[in-house]
């Protein structure tokens, strides 16, 4: 009984019902039917046409709709809280929960690209992933032409390269490697977790 009382008392400070993580300015919410047009537009926008999944193609509406949830463990829109603007999409996919890993990806609106906003949203997704499932590590599947975006994370020890498929893709007249980066739980705890903890402090 004492323990229950203690737990009940503690609940004033920390809700017993887990919620999706958020920072002071950003939140995550699942994509809804009404978001699909916006997501399609993001996926095939000039900034993302080659960087994300479709490599310069424009899939049919039905194909896009179906593939949006292919292999997905969880995915959320990154939302700015003060105006509910959609900034991007962050996704966990190809999970193997018995082996303790999943893959993660992020897609930005053109307006949010390069601002750090969707990166903050990605950190929230990673926190959600590590707290919800017994994951050992999260992979990022990075075409060589996207690798610049991970230089700083690699240097800081937030991710480590664990695999590389040489000349895996041919695009825009040349071959590119496909690189597999991994973020282990302790890497997340010592880096991104510390940053978002500070960003959410009141």
């Amino acid at each position, binding site marked *: 009984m004492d323990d229950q009382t203690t737990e009940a008392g503690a609940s004033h400070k920390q809700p017993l019902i887990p919620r999706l993580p958020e920072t002071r300015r950003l939140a995550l919410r699942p994509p809804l039917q009404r978001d699909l047009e916006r997501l399609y537009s993001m996926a095939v926008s000039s900034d993302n046409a080659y960087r994300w999944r479709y490599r310069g193609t424009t899939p049919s509406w039905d194909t896009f709709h179906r593939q949006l949830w292919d292999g997905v463990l969880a995915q959320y829109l990154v939302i700015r809280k003060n105006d509910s603007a959609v900034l991007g999409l962050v996704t966990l996919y190809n999970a193997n929960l018995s082996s303790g890993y999943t893959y993660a990806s992020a897609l930005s609106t053109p307006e949010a690209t*390069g*601002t*750090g*906003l969707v*990166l*903050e949203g990605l950190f929230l997704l990673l926190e959600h992933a590590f707290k919800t499932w017994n994951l050992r590590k999260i992979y990022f599947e990075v075409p060589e032409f996207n690798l610049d975006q991970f*230089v*700083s994370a690699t*240097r800081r020890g937030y991710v480590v390269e664990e695999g590389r498929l040489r000349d895996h893709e041919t695009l825009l007249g040349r071959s590119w490697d496909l690189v597999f980066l991994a973020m282990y739980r302790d890497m997340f705890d010592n880096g991104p977790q510390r940053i978002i903890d500070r*960003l959410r402090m009141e």
Partner: protein
Amino acid sequence: MIALPSQEFVRSLILEAADGEHALDEISALELAANLWHHFRVEVPPEMLVGAVRTDRVHAAVVAQLLTIDAAGPLDCDSGT
């Protein structure tokens, strides 16, 4: 009375966030924004910090935010300055 941070302290935060790089990238900007909030409870949007290299501009934005004056424009700091 507001305790304003010294330029030296802001500079140390920038250098820590930049982690040896010439300018702040997205991760560095997020880290600096987190540290500015942690130390001063001043909210400088990371998107204003991406690319920043000059201490005085960041310092001015922090001070402006502390004084609740809008920080004017992005911290557009030319590389090499």
